[in-house]
């Protein structure tokens, strides 16, 4: 008998499926049921660039402590895809469990001796009950959820409750799903020892008032609350669901009650060139506008982003980052667009980036980005990624302060112009580098100007004079410093003990980092941490680096892009910043971070031979 991993509310179940088989909703049902028992879960989709027939995985981390990063390793594999069988079986931790469809006998060579095998004849059960092919396919998924619910002690009432919510008003569907669930439960209860699987879910109350939502949905809602009225986009994974969610939210929240008319405009553009062009046109004309896209879209947008930066037009771009160009890896997650966004376009351009850690910050930062873009009159990027964007993540509930008004920044009104207030479109009136603007059509004789890229003086008059250009560029630099002050500030987490080691991280690395810090601390590796939330970096980031001898920079890209930006912004000794890099397309894990940093710390702590000898 192999050993058996025993764990309560702390394990990883991975589902291996074929995409297009209806497994996604069954797997989500599984995760939600555990959540309803008060136990935090962190599910992740791992899917191909495909709609039907290719392998897809859904990994659910059950985590009493609320560690929402990917843990790494699999305690139970629900192997529903013959195509990936070998790979899936290999991935199970020793002492872990393989759950499979045992309808057809399989040779012993297909299994492993160091894992526990749980076979349920899913196909046989399904085919004995259903004759319709589609029903067979869909209910087989529910049957395995039923079987797992017995094995893992998941409360069947919670699952039934979820059916009730999902199929509200369609009683027939509720009944048929409950029946399928029961088929799976009955078979296991009759044939399998209740202790065969020692991974158990026990009711808890660690979920609290948290919400369970995808980052794309959250960002879309942030755009509604942030007052975006124009959205232009082009479909691209993993960002498409953001624009679609914006449409769905607007349909509910943004129609005039009396006339039924829309207080928003959404255009699915012909490409990303047009999406950003529409956003810039709307921003220039005083509407709040945004686009959502991913890396290849950013590449196409770069010329326009430069124009918006030089012409000082507000624009918000949500970049749901993925892996590289073309197709395939792009359905996997990365943080590899930092440089391409921070310095997008020709000429001396630098842009404001915000780094949300979870759906809550996707909501907050998208709304905030719309304010910042107006205040700074420049493009602002919300740098989310596939891991946050397309997975349900447990996070703090969204909040809104009803006294908050949309901050439209320095906009000169007709009354101010009429009263004789001096208007210079590119004139810095109060030292923050931000000039006043007017919306087109404001005043019959005052305040109009011609918008160009580079070639203008303080009053928007055409000028190719060198000193005039330099003055403008220095003002833009000053504006960038202002951005560092008003953008979200970094958050610091201090080790209980003083230490000369620090770690800087950002975005979706956050949950894995929080867990890794606990592991490191438990092992006596004391590290202070700083989560960077925006570029340009504030003074606090430089101070943090100077405070430590070595600072690990944890990123999900190959080229240590954040580190490059830190090196460019501050005067630093390159040896001081140690990259910790993960970029295989899977979300970074606490295990990886903790072990990589621990190894590097061990090397640092080795006393050089000569010194030891002397």
């Amino acid at each position, binding site marked *: 008998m192999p050993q058996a991993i025993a764990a309560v509310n702390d394990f990883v179940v991975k589902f291996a499926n074929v995409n297009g088989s209806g497994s996604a909703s069954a797997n989500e049902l599984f995760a939600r049921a555990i959540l309803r028992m008060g136990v935090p879960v962190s599910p992740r989709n791992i899917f191909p660039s495909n709609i039907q027939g290719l392998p897809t995985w859904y990994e659910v981390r059950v985590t009493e402590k609320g560690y929402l990063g990917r843990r790494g390793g699999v305690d139970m594999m629900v192997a529903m895809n013959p195509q990936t069988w070998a790979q899936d079986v290999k991935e199970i931790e020793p002492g872990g469990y393989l759950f499979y469809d045992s309808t057809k006998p399989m040779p012993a060579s297909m299994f492993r001796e160091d894992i526990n095998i749980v076979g349920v004849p899913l196909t046989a059960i399904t085919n004995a009950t259903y004759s319709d092919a589609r029903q067979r396919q869909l209910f087989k998924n529910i049957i395995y959820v039923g079987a797992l619910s017995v094995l893992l002690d998941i409360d069947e009432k919670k699952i039934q409750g979820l059916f009730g919510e999902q199929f509200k008003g369609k009683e027939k569907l509720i009944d048929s799903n409950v029946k399928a669930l029961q088929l799976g439960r009955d078979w296991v209860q009759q044939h399998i020892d209740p202790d065969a699987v020692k991974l158990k879910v026990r009711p808890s109350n660690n979920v609290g*008032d*948290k*919400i*369970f939502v995808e980052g794309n949905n959250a960002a879309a*809602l942030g755009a*509604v*609350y*942030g*007052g*975006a*009225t*124009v959205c*232009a986009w082009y479909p691209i994974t993993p960002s498409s669901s953001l624009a679609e969610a914006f449409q769905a939210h607007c349909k509910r929240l943004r129609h*005039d009650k009396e*006339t*039924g*008319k*829309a*207080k*928003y*405009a959404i*255009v699915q553009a*012909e*490409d990303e*060139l*047009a999406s*950003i*062009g*529409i*956003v*810039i*046109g*709307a921003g*220039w*004309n*005083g*509407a709040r*506008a945004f686009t959502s896209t991913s890396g290849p879209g950013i590449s196409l947008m770069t*010329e*326009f982003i430069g*124009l918006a930066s030089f012409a000082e037009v507000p624009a918000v771009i949500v970049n749901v980052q993925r892996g590289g160009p073309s197709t395939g890896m792009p359905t996997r997650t990365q943080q590899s667009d930092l440089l391409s966004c921070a310095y997008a376009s020709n000429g001396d351009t630098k842009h404001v980036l915000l780094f949300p850690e979870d759906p809550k910050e996707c909501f907050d930062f998208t709304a905030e980005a719309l304010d910042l873009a107006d205040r700074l009159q420049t493009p602002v990027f919300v740098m989310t990624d596939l891991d946050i964007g397309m997975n349900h993540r447990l996070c703090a*509930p*969204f909040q*809104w302060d009803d006294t*908050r*008004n*949309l901050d439209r920044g320095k906009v000169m009104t007709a009354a101010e112009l009429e009263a004789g207030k001096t208007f210079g479109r590119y004139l810095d009136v109060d030292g923050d580098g931000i000039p006043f603007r007017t*919306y*087109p*059509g*404001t005043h*019959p*004789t005052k305040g*109009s*100007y*011609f*918008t*160009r890229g580079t070639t203008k003086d303080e009053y928007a008059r*055409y*000028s190719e004079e060198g000193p005039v250009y330099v003055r403008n560029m220095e003002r833009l630099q000053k504006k960038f410093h202002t951005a560092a002050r008003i953008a979200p500030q970094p958050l610091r987490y201090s080790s209980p003990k003083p230490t000369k080691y620090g770690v800087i991280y950002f975005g979706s690395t956050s949950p894995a980092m929080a867990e890794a810090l606990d592991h490191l601390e438990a092992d006596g590796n004391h590290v202070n941490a700083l989560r960077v939330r925006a570029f340009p970096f504030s003074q606090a980031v430089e101070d943090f680096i100077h405070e430590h001898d070595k600072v690990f920079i944890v990123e999900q890209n190959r080229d240590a892009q954040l580190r490059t930006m830190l090196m460019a912004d501050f005067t630093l000794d390159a040896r001081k910043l140690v990259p910790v890099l993960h970029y295989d397309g899977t979300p970074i894990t606490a295990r990886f971070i903790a072990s990589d940093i621990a190894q590097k710390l061990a090397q640092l702590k080795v006393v050089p031979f000569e010194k030891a000898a002397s």
Partner: protein
Amino acid sequence: MTYIAKPRLHHPSLVKNKAGFTRRDYEGAVSTLCAGCGHDSISAAIIQACYELDILPHQVAKLSGIGCSSKAPTYFVGASHGFNTVHGRMPSVMTGANLANKDLIYMGVSGDGDSASIGLGQFAHIMRRGVNMTYIVMNNGVYGLTKGQFSATADKGSISKKGVANSEESIDLVSLAILMGATFVGRSFSGDKNQLVPLIKAAMDHKGAAFLDVISPCVAFNNHAGSTKSYEYVREHNEALNRLDFIEGREEITTQYEPGTATTVQQHDGSILRLRKLGEEYDASDKVAAMKRVQEGLQAGEVVTGLLYLDPTPKDLHQNLNTVDAPLNALGTADLCPGSGVLDRINASFR
């Protein structure tokens, strides 16, 4: 030298229009284009059209791409906002601007390189979206600002200034605009003010995607023998289908036009277009016939001008999107932000 401002003093005898402005109030900065450039004639026609339409100058938004033509918005209606965007992408910026404020008058100015080459995609899509605008291509068949390369509208077989023959097919923007769904499509010639000014006025009054292809000879690089977009060639090959008289909806004076010589088309907003027939019978509201006539002209080497196609009851982008009557850029926090109560309910749905 666009920073040379024109003197602001106006002659007291200049006639004011109903909006209280003289023709000079619709002028812009001094043109920096070459002397004799067709584009300047088009700018002058735009100025005349705006003056005659009694438009409030600041209610115009001028947008352009990059190229000689795209410099032109600086030279007309100086009291309005303008935006010199990036090459070939003016249509998307104008679409966004239009979405933000449906109440302004949108004037897009582009060239043949800007619209038929680098910007062909955006050109097509702004037409099919029905953005309420006047889109003018100052079409000279050549890249002026980069000194004389062929553009995609140069006719096959035409000869460049350096003596090279164009071996590629030309793109006919008029045909394309009709095909893509523009609801007002006309063509004219920069040197034919009598035809051009009423066309621009009618286009500006049209509540949908209005496109004007204006042949505009380039005096520097495309005004020689062998060019099919020179003054001489166009004058010889211009076949005007109709003359246009434009009457705004609020004016009821129609008696000055001889019945029998004109067809009247009433537009969606009540304004009236009179098409004076020259030559054959031509029905501008027949899309298929319009396509056929334009293609026949191309084959015969004629520049068919006039109002080529008109849908008198167009639906524009805002109608299609069913947006509120107020401009989107005028909506405030109360209109846009659903507040914390709604958010609490949304949170509950995510549990």
